């Protein structure tokens, strides 16, 4: 009996997955997003193996091939130090994705928990305290806060991530607060209270599952935003430092040589754009994926 049950469970999971794919793929644009994200991720993970010149990602100089325009040997050309732009972009994806992933990993869990608490206890002092703190953080313009933090601390990619995290968590709190406080009065939550369920159950098993769709959509869109902000910080020199092949730094370094050696700046900028676009489109797809089908 347990064997049959396990098989039944697996079969159900597979059906669920197929149905999810059906819902997701009905919008071809979401699939494009998925392809972009998967492509960027693949390239980032396997950068040492897929880049034509993996050593160019670190300290490297070859002035004999400096500032070459795009050609067969260097698809995206080379920069002033002779480094292959394409390979550096591949490695640059690593830093962008890592920044996004780390920031979200730090920010989502606390932000969501605070939002659930504030929403469930809406109208009480818990709500007031949490939301006013959230408001304070939200009141500071994000880039200014990041700039302030990184200029006080040593500019490096780690501190840039800390700075971005610090001003990112309130958005999740606010999102989940809105959802939780309206869900809180739905009959199914009241039912759980009448039955005597613990507060923990209500927060995490009744309210949270109904927030998951919005949270995942936001996470996907946020990857794009965090990458952009990270790139902006690098652009002004407060994020990754040379010779790290961060996309933002590459755009900054190459900006001086526009419009003649346009490839040094333009291709990294384009890479940023493609990554952000991919996550945005994917985010839309998430919303379709989590939608409930009516009968």
């Amino acid at each position, binding site marked *: 009996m347990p064997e049959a049950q396990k098989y039944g469970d697996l079969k159900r999971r597979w059906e669920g997955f197929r149905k999810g794919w059906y819902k997701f793929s009905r919008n071809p644009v979401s699939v494009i997003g998925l392809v972009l994200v998967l492509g960027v991720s693949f390239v980032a993970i396997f950068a040492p193996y897929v880049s034509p010149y993996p050593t160019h990602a670190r300290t490297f100089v070859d002035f004999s091939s400096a500032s070459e325009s795009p050609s067969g040997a260097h698809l995206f050309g080379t920069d002033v130090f002779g480094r292959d732009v394409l390979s550096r972009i591949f490695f640059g994806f690593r830093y962008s994705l890592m920044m996004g992933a780390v920031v979200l990993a730090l920010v989502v869990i606390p932000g969501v928990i605070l939002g659930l608490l504030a929403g469930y206890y809406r109208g009480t002092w818990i709500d007031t305290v949490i939301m006013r703190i959230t408001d304070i953080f939200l009141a500071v313009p994000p880039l200014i806060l990041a700039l302030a933090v990184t200029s006080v601390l040593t500019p490096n990619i780690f501190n840039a991530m800390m700075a971005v995290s610090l001003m990112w968590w309130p958005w999740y709190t606010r999102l989940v607060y809105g959802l939780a406080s309206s869900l809180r009065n739905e*009959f*199914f939550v*009241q*039912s759980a209270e*009448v*039955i*005597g369920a*613990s507060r923990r159950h209500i927060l995490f098993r*009744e309210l949270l599952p109904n927030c998951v769709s919005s949270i995942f959509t936001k996470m996907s869109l946020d990857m794009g935003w965090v990458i952009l902000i990270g790139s902006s910080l690098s652009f002004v020199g407060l994020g990754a430092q040379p010779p790290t092949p961060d996309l933002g730094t590459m755009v900054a370094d190459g900006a001086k040589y526009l419009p003649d050696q346009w490839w040094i700046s333009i291709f990294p900028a384009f890479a940023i754009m493609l990554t952000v676009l991919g996550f945005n489109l994917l985010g839309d797809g998430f919303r379709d994926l989590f939608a409930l089908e009516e*009968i």
Partner: protein
Amino acid sequence: MPNDLLVVENLKKHFVTSRGTVRAVDDVSFTAREGETLGLVGESGSGKSTVAYTIIGLHAPTAGTITFDGKNMSTAVQKRPRSLKRSLQIVFQDPGTSLNPRRTIEQILSLPLQVHGVGTRRARRSAVIELLKSVELPADYVFKSPHMLGGGERQMVAIARALATNPRLIILDEPTSALDVSIQAKIINMLCAFQQEMNLTYLFITHDLSLMRNVASRVAIMYLGKVYELAPTDEFFERPLQPYTKMLLSSIPVVLPEEEAIKPSRIISKGEIPSPVNVPPGCGFHTRCPEMEENCDSDEPQLVEVEEGHFVRCHKCAEPAMEEIVGKE
């Protein structure tokens, strides 16, 4: 002699809002005896749902007492002992939102079992399947989510959930209003069967008087937060005294000629139902009452027993009874 399982005395629930104080429940008293079905009928703003939610503990009463099986429980649900939460359950009106759309039927039905002590997952799974069987749903529904079920089936799951803890009293707040007639028939018959088997007591709330006739043993009608008439079912429907009751009964669309014959003669209701924020002075019903007298807009009538078991809140109806009382003094 069945005991009084639920005793509600002078219950009040007021909400303070920006538009004023909403006197949703304004001095309501009744008792529900073990094994009977007490019906609560009323239109929007009558407060019948608020009464239900206050009894079940979703609101804390503003005033008055609620006693269940001798124990005082006039508090919000969070402060009540667990044993009380087992004995008193509720089925909500809207099957669409009373079940969490993101949980499976198994998870939904396991919750009361988990909270009230059924230990292992395996034991809970078999208990859940038993519950589904008792409401005539197939066992493989455990894997489904509420949005895959029709309205009637969802409501049956909600009923199964209410029964899971073996309660003594179930509040049914318009359990079939959103459902079709044929499903309603099935559910009502099922509820009656459960009542017999398990000696359940029901507080049955609905606006559908034809349904009430077939379900309740006693009926109370509410208007703007107060009970205006309370009587055994046959009395209520065949010899209604309160003009509001008569108005309501005369407005019901019916199909059979016998039903048409039993209705009081047509009383056209004029105007809108006042909001519970602005309860008219004196008798709350006087603005729409066709039998209004002089003092109806100034003196508030009390709920008086005019015949055995038959209570009315109305100056005109209570006159003969009042005279009797005054005469005795």
